[in-house]
């Protein structure tokens, strides 16, 4: 009955909260301005071609690459899942702000070091920069949060937009439980008007 995976890691949560404050405070105003001007297009193709989504998708694909025996982030629609998660009506905006702010930060660092944006990097440059930002608490928490959403996209019910046709479940030979949720019983509809809160 002790649901270990239900409780968030206390340490992880605390560091994340501390980081949110410090990141916002140290964040360049220009980058914030840039983020605000990037309204997400309703056009399905258009939104993916623009930042922050374009950079996030590139980071996701690096963190979870497509290989011969494993689906990659693009295969299990990690970006669609993430967008649904942080843009849904029950989301409180905290994760969205943090993730979007981090994109600006990553690209600032990328231009500073290589005079190019992250999406223009080759694989080894991507690894170098991501391992570099992992050294800071904020960067580490940003990557950790993206990884959490990646693992959710891989293994959550397909109704949430990731794991299409159970590709993640099949890859890991995981047997899902039944009945699975229909769209009108997704968590954020059941929880409404209770607002979004992440647990781990």
């Amino acid at each position, binding site marked *: *009955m*002790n*649901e*270990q*995976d*239900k*409780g*968030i*890691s*206390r340490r992880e*949560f*605390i560091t994340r*909260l501390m980081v949110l404050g410090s990141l916002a405070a140290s964040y360049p105003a220009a980058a914030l301005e840039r983020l605000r001007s990037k309204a997400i297009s309703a056009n399905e193709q258009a939104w993916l071609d623009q930042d922050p989504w374009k950079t996030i998708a590139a980071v996701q694909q*690096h*963190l*979870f*690459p497509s*290989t011969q025996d*494993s689906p990659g982030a693009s295969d299990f629609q990690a970006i669609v899942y993430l967008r649904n998660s942080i843009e849904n009506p029950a989301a409180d905006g905290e994760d969205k702000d943090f993730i979007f702010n981090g994109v600006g930060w990553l690209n600032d660092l990328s231009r500073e070091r290589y005079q190019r944006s992250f999406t223009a990097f080759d694989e080894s440059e991507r*690894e170098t920069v*991501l391992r570099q930002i*992992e050294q800071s608490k904020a960067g*580490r928490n940003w*990557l*950790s949060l993206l*990884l*959490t959403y990646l*693992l*959710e996209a*891989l*293994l*959550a*019910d397909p*109704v*949430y937009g990731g794991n299409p046709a159970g590709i*993640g*479940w099949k890859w*890991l*030979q*995981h*047997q*899902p*439980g*039944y*009945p*699975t*949720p*229909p769209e009108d*019983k*997704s*968590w954020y509809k*059941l*929880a409404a008007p*209770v*607002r*979004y*809160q*992440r*647990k*781990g």
Partner: protein
Amino acid sequence: MDHDFDVCVIGSGAGAGPVVLTLAEAGYSVLVLEKGPWLTEQDFYKDELACCRRSVYTPQLTNEQHVIEDLDNEGDWVGEATSDSGWDFWNGNCVGGSSNFMSGFFYRLKPEDFRLLSEFGPLAGANIADWPISYAELEPWYSKVESEVGISGKIVDHPLAEPRSTADFPYPPTHEHPIAKRIDSSCRELGLHPLPTPRAILSRAKDKRRSCEYSGYCGSYGCSSGAKGSARAALLDRALATGRCVIRPHSKVYKLVSSSKGKVVAAAYFDADGQTQKVGAKIFVVACQAIETSRLLLSSTGPKHTNGLANNTGQVGRNLLFSAGGSGSGDFVYAGMTDKQAEALKVRGPFVNRGLQDWYVIDDKAFGGRAKGGTVDFLLRHPNPIGKAMSVKWDDDDRLLWGRPLQIQLKSLFTGSQSLRYEIFCDWMPTDNCYVSLDARLRDKWQSPVARVRIGYHEHDLKVGRFINERAMQVLEKMGAENIRSSVSGAPPQNLVAGGCRFGDNPGTSVLDADCRAHDVDNLYVTDGSFMPTGGSVPYTWTIYANAFRVADRIRRVL
């Protein structure tokens, strides 16, 4: 005097259900005020996000939190809001309460549990007390729960079996996982007595409830077949059918209003729109789970109850109990097994259904003499895939894992082995350092002071836990498990909570009398796990159900 209802019950979980059903069936009008939403079988799916990763069944911590007071490194008690720590102490706030989300392994207490003090003697630093009733008095109500809630199981001979008035369970055991046989044979080789675990889960249909459908996702999940014996599916739905029960969800009771004579006259609550409402009744029953029950009483000051309702001797909130013990696990690696053996271990759906109570009473020189011990229950690792995957997000050096190394870890974790776990349940000794009070600073979204919970444990709990843990590990070793790891700690499992409003014969040291009526409030009863002076060494739910049926019978007699 006119009343809106004969009985008003605050809370709708295991402590409430038996009272509501008994009194509605007896012809009385019953109102249930539940803080959370009213979810049913039509809302419960095998959705890990809804069950375990988002706040669907529990409040958002920024709206409603606790303050948990723990010892810091300097030995001072320091409080931290759960909204800051993320350590969630809510267990299920919806109609039926946390009984919707239990895994339903049900054990009775044993006769010794009712007289811990006289049986095992005092312990320095622990407020051990005998119960004012005996096992024999509660036994018929344990039996009633078997048939009313629906408990499946099988009686076998056991040296420490508690007496029972019926020959066997009304429902045969649920289907069992192939690993159960391996547990049995290893336990027997060690001279132990494996017990089939009784479960509050139907192995065949009962009324409108279907049999278990063996999805393999039970604990933490709401039940979509109705097989799980939640207070809602098993009791409240039947109470509603009488036409005399009204359930109001989204109704947060913030105060029980008492008169100049000291009786409760109304429950004051916020409705779904945040508007304050009041409702009157002849009798009020509080069953909000231990922490929130104490909080409500402490918040309910009145002319005759200046320190909080039923708190004239300062006992409300004291001697809070969790469940002591620990847990362990071991892996069965598929490589090296035959396909048939591996397939048997991969089976998903049936229950492990095995426990050990050989050390329920410890009588061993190695321990230092005769003492109260505990229960071991076996279960497979929870199948939640995201929770499982999250366990390999960090490497051993606390660095994030990504790319190929992450994929390799995931593949191995999911396809390389099966994990068998065990959980140990021991008495959580009541002490002066485990109690509920009102926080002086933090308020919830309705501006009520939140509960401040000090979570101190007694060192003896760890000693018992370690003794049993060493022996439980031997079972995994005997079974051939690899990578065996375990932990015994004093951290409280927030889902196993009781105490805070002890029942007893002495008003100076208890809140409730033997009928679970407040010593100093004639028309106030508490029927959740708060009444327990000591907790026993099993999960609490069966005992809460049984006692609530017993108290409901007392209330029926005075109405």
